[in-house]
């Protein structure tokens, strides 16, 4: 479905975000170093990486908050930060935690945010339009009922929703979301995922950073992995998750199965066997053939299928710089 959105028109298929050799140094420390990444129009792009890997710095550079030491940034076809005035109005952003004026209501906060910025039209008609946009944004994130309460009474999840509403209020072409799932309960995370997928199907490109693999795996179509400021991986999620050629077998008769498949068993983990495939007809065919062979031998098979690496395994394999780094990830 992403492909459908991505190839909708010629313009959205162009790179929406492109960086070249982007570097940011704080003194001797390189927070981001030589990052060259590309986000296509219609992507749901997930930027993964442990805490402190440079995700936030990268996001802030894309938005013109932090100035790059060297390298180039192009967002929506224009150079940043030089063309911030033209580019940023088309972007909705959530940068680390959401922020609002605590003594004002959620609605008042959105209204203030919407009224700020260049070329805000005045007059009663424009005011009505703005009020409608605020209503819509509140509705989209499910804050409709509490919009008149001061933000200081909001829970963390409600604040996150309000931040998201702020990002959506201008009907952006590109959403840049830094850790959007923070503070949301499982219900909220599911709502967020559905909202983002819906927006993406309507043509909005989504760029989000996260250290939560599961969140990215369920939502994104493309991932980039940052490690210590370097982009160590950038790939379509589907390509990353092509079967490895192994077959996973879950069986209560693991001992007998291991004996039967002698030599073909790559790894054994309790009742789970990772079996090297022999045939040339792909892992799916292997799984079926293997299943038949096991059942024929009188073994019980509770689950069988081609093996895919999880995103977590993939990320850990490319960011393997030490247990300290990956300890915070999971």
């Amino acid at each position, binding site marked *: 479905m992403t492909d459908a959105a991505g190839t909708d028109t010629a313009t959205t298929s162009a790179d929406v975000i492109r960086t070249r050799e982007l570097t940011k140094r704080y003194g001797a420390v390189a927070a981001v170093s030589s990052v060259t990444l590309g986000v296509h129009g219609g992507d749901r792009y997930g930027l993964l990486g442990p805490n402190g890997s440079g995700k936030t710095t990268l996001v802030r550079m894309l*938005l013109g908050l932090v100035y790059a030491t060297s390298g180039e940034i192009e967002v929506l076809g224009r150079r940043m930060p030089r063309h911030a005035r033209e580019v*940023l109005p088309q972007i909705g*952003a959530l940068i680390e935690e959401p922020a609002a*004026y605590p003594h004002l209501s959620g609605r008042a906060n959105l209204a203030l945010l919407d*009224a700020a910025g260049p070329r805000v039209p005045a007059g009663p008609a424009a005011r009505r339009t703005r009020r409608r946009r605020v209503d819509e944004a509140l509705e989209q994130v499910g804050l409709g009922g509490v919009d008149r309460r001061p933000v200081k009474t909001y829970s963390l999840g409600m604040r996150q929703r309000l931040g998201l509403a702020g990002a959506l209020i201008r009907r952006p072409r590109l959403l840049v979301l830094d850790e959007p799932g923070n503070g949301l309960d499982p219900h909220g995370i599911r709502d967020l995922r559905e909202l983002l997928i819906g927006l993406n199907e309507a043509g909005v490109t989504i760029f989000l950073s996260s250290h939560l693999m599961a969140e990215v795996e369920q939502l994104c179509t493309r991932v980039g992995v940052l490690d210590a400021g370097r982009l160590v991986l950038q790939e379509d999620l589907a390509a990353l998750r092509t079967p490895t050629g192994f077959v996973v077998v879950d069986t209560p008769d693991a001992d007998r199965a291991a004996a039967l498949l002698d030599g073909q068993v790559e790894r054994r983990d309790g009742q789970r066997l990772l079996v090297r495939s022999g045939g040339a007809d792909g892992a799916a065919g292997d799984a079926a053939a293997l299943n038949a062979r096991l059942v024929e031998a009188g073994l019980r098979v509770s689950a069988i299928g081609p093996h895919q690496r999880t995103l977590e395994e993939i990320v850990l394999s490319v960011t393997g710089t030490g247990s300290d780094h990956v300890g915070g990830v999971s």
Partner: protein
Amino acid sequence: MIRVELAKLFRRPRTWISMVLTCALPFVVAVFITITHLAPPPGQGSAFLSAVLQNGELYPAAALALVLPVFLPVAVAVVAGDSIAGEAAGGTLRYLLVRPVSRTRLLVAKLISVIAYVLLVVLAVTFTAYATGIFLLGPSRAAAVGQAPGGAGAGGTVPGAVSGIAGQAPTAGQAAGGAVTSLSGAPLSLLQLAERIAGAIAFITVSMLGVAAIALFLSTITDSALGSALGALAALVASEILVTLNAATVVQPYLPTRYWLAWIDFFRQPVFWRDIQRGFGIQAVYVVVFLAAAWANFSTKDITA
């Protein structure tokens, strides 16, 4: 953007609380003076205060003199110091900037809202003090003219409220620094009086803008609103100490608080312009220098908060 900043300023409870407190101080002082009938003797205490028992209409000037040394600069430093640093600490700064609001425009909007705040507080003090003076201390009495020290000259020739005010002018001068002999006792017309109060308000506002510029500059350096407000106040305290230090005579003409009290000269007849002009000049320099520094720093700064 300016409308947004003003809305933020005036929807904040702090703005109104600080204003009410600033207006309350002169009121409390007036209550005590009314009850005890004990005003400071001429030449002592806060400027104009010695004269208010004879002339309630002079109370706005006395009230401004009361709030100028501490209340007003504290309020201004807090508001201006909070302007950028407060948004940074609260996280709202980054969301404003990606709207996008250009950094220069944001700084200008912040400055204008600080100016609006200063004007509002000064005007509020003036009006509440005028009401306090009229209702509590009573309007000027003809007899007051004769009682006012140094006011016997021309003041005595025109009876009534207007001459009463003129009669107090020397008292003001005395409080400011014992310059009684240089003052004329000529009466002020109501129009003249209004002009002079307007002048004093303008002068005090500009003086406060010097404070605001320092605080605004510090506000772009740190993400701590408290730090920038206290930093600006520390600069003022240091200036006050140096102003009274004979050994520091060389730098005194350039200190931000050196001419703070020069607005009192508006109430002399004729207006004694020298210190007023210097005061305006030195504040203009402080405003320009610190705003330029604030702009240079803020527009090139990485926003990591």
